[in-house]
């Protein structure tokens, strides 16, 4: 019935229950599994991360594994099911729905933490949001309805961890120098414009600043030069940056 099952995992118990259910279902139906881990891309400050972790712990939730994808892949191998792992970042529900479409999955399996009251208001519910917007059936696995002991016994470390971190190539000699030259050149050029305009508007130069040019004081023209110069320099810098990155994903 189902050919490709997408399961979203985050290392917490409800999602591991969903993963176990997805792999077992795929085994029964001869389907394959796409295991997806989404890293949220919200620029949170450390204090907020800690506050949220504390809130989750307070609600009896803490991550059971730091490598949920490796764990699902290992569990899949054990059951003879093909598991493709995908790690992406972005808004959680949006990415789940996108990946479901990209991989042509015909079933999405998600865990539900079963949060109530303020906790539910605070954290919301991915399960509910996915089921509202998905274009294929969605199976929601309620918290504590699937026994995940078997999964936890698999050593996640032994599983192949997905390669998601770009490797940092050593900085070629001269690259840093070239970048410093370019950035500092533009900065020096802009500094001349900016400090020229800014210091012209100090008391010792007030007579010079007040010299009229086309109906306006020189200082106002200098100010505008600094602003328009800033626009031009920014444009030049960003064009160069884009050429350097070749449109690579940022």
């Amino acid at each position, binding site marked *: 019935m189902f050919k490709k099952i997408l399961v979203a995992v985050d290392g917490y118990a409800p999602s591991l229950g969903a993963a176990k259910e997805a792999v077992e279902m795929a085994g029964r139906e001869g389907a394959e599994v796409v295991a997806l881990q989404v890293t949220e891309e919200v*620029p949170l*400050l450390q204090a*907020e991360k*800690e506050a949220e972790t504390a809130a989750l712990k307070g609600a009896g939730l803490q991550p059971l594994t730091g490598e949920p994808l490796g764990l699902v892949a290992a569990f899949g191998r054990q059951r003879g099911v093909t598991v493709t792992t995908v790690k992406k970042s*972005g808004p959680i*529900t949006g990415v789940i729905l996108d990946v479901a479409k990209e991989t042509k999955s015909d079933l999405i399996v998600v865990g539900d933490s079963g949060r109530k009251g303020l906790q539910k208001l605070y954290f919301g519910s991915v399960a509910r949001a996915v089921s509202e917007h998905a274009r294929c059936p969605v199976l929601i696995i309620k918290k504590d309805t699937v026994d995940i002991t078997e999964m936890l016994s698999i050593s996640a470390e032994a599983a192949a961890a997905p390669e998601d971190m770009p490797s940092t190539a050593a900085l070629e000699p001269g690259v840093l120098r070239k970048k410093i030259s370019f950035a500092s050149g533009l900065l020096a050029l802009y500094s001349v414009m900016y400090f020229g305009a800014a210091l012209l*508007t100090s008391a010792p130069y007030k007579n010079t600043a007040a010299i009229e040019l086309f109906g306006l*004081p020189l200082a106002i023209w200098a100010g505008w030069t600094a602003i328009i110069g800033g*626009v031009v320099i920014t444009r030049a810098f960003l064009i160069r940056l884009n050429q350097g990155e070749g449109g690579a994903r*940022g």
Partner: protein
Amino acid sequence: MDNPIAFTIVIASILLTMYISWASRRHTRTTAAFYVAEGKIPWRLNGAAMLGDYCSAASFLGVAGAVALVGVDGWWLALGFFAAWIVVLLVIAGPLKSTGKYTVGDVLSARFGGRESGIRIVAMLSTLVLCTLYLVPQMVGAGHLFKLLLGWDYLPTVLVTGTLMAVYVIVGGMRGTTYNQAIQGILLFGAMLGILIWVSISHFGGNPLAIVERSQEMVPPAVVTKEVAGTLAQMETADAAAAVATAREQMPDAPDAITPGVELRDLANQASLVLGLFLGTLGLPHILIRFYTVRNARAARKSAEFTIWGLAIFYAAVLLVGLAAMYVMYPTLVQLLAEGQRGKATNMAVPMLGQLLGGEIVLGIIAAGAMAAMLSTAVGLLISATTSLSHDLYATVLRPQSTDRERVLFAKTGAGFLAAVSIVLALWLRDQNVGVLVAMCFGIAASTFAPALVFTVWWTRLTRQAVVAGMGVGLVLSLVLTFAKFFNVPHLLGVPVLVNPALYSVPAAILVTVLVAYLTKDTGRADEFLASAHGS
């Protein structure tokens, strides 16, 4: 209540921004969030959010208000705010985007390791000082705004503002920043342009350039008040044109509103101010976040260009709106100055102009935009402070074995204490222009974070000890000089105290950093870090 409709608009806007933050919680994903899934964040939204960071209350209220009182000399501050953004883009936006770090603490930890307590402590102290002082102008501006809206005394309005900021932190946090900042940017930008168009049509025959012509007839209110306040204070009922003409008759040789020289600083003060503005934005916690929400270089470029153009237009509008406010509200501004209400005159010129033009609805829209700007800035600052408290002080120094819950509790208590300190300072500095107060904070940031950050991402030779020494010297010097200015101390350590500490503290911090770097050896993970920052 003085302005029930305007007040309702402000409250509605506050509730809306709180809802947006709430709806952006960890796992909540509404339809709107689905549309900004990977690759779908519209660059215009990011551009508007970047604009929202920059069209802050300092620019919107402070700069325009300063122009309304002293003429074009109030506008030079805007140049610094604009230029600061260019510096951020040229110097650190690229490297920081590459490393994925966007706070000073993160950057220093990435290069020098997270367990170095010297760096942690000096970064924490700098963060706490900067955040506390930067909260002050937000509170001063918001306090005056509530006072204008509700007619309350200043003290309760500042207390209410402080409480609101705390609620924002608890309910909102950094989530929803993109949406809230974008709404705020569009609102402030739209309000500024809207006022400009409206006032041009209603008072200047539909021609914005006529504002400049009229400006050449006006004697700035700050000059009038010094010279002939007694006469003009009686002109409560005079219309603007008559008041302008009377002032000019009485002071035929006085400068006009677009002639530089009304309130120009001496060379040292001006140099110090513009240097502080130029470098100050580099260390502000809420500024770089926008670069991490764009998905690729093309989107980043488009967003940045959108922002730069937006800022250029915005600051042009600020100049014209300030001059228009001077003309339209001439008798009112002169009278406020004569009564000694400089704080209200300088910070509330734009909202008062909006009220004059479009009544309570326009006042409400302007107040809502300004309030959103102040509250969102305050959230970023308070959360940065709590991060420092929980992470750098409590978990590293005081109680390394503490639990998450204990750290969070300590951080929240500490943030409450910092907010209380800010309230006391806001009461003390109530008559200061918010733009000038913000500029002072820029001076502190320029002396502490800017050198550390720039050297960390660009200089292989920088050492752990140099960071601590440079930031320490920058912090102590800039803080001492800032408070000397607050207390009106004319000279300190044999040098004149300036409007901004940067002229002394920035070179000192740079010099100490470089000297100590050459005397010590521990460069941290320099090669690895610089490769991640600058490798293609």
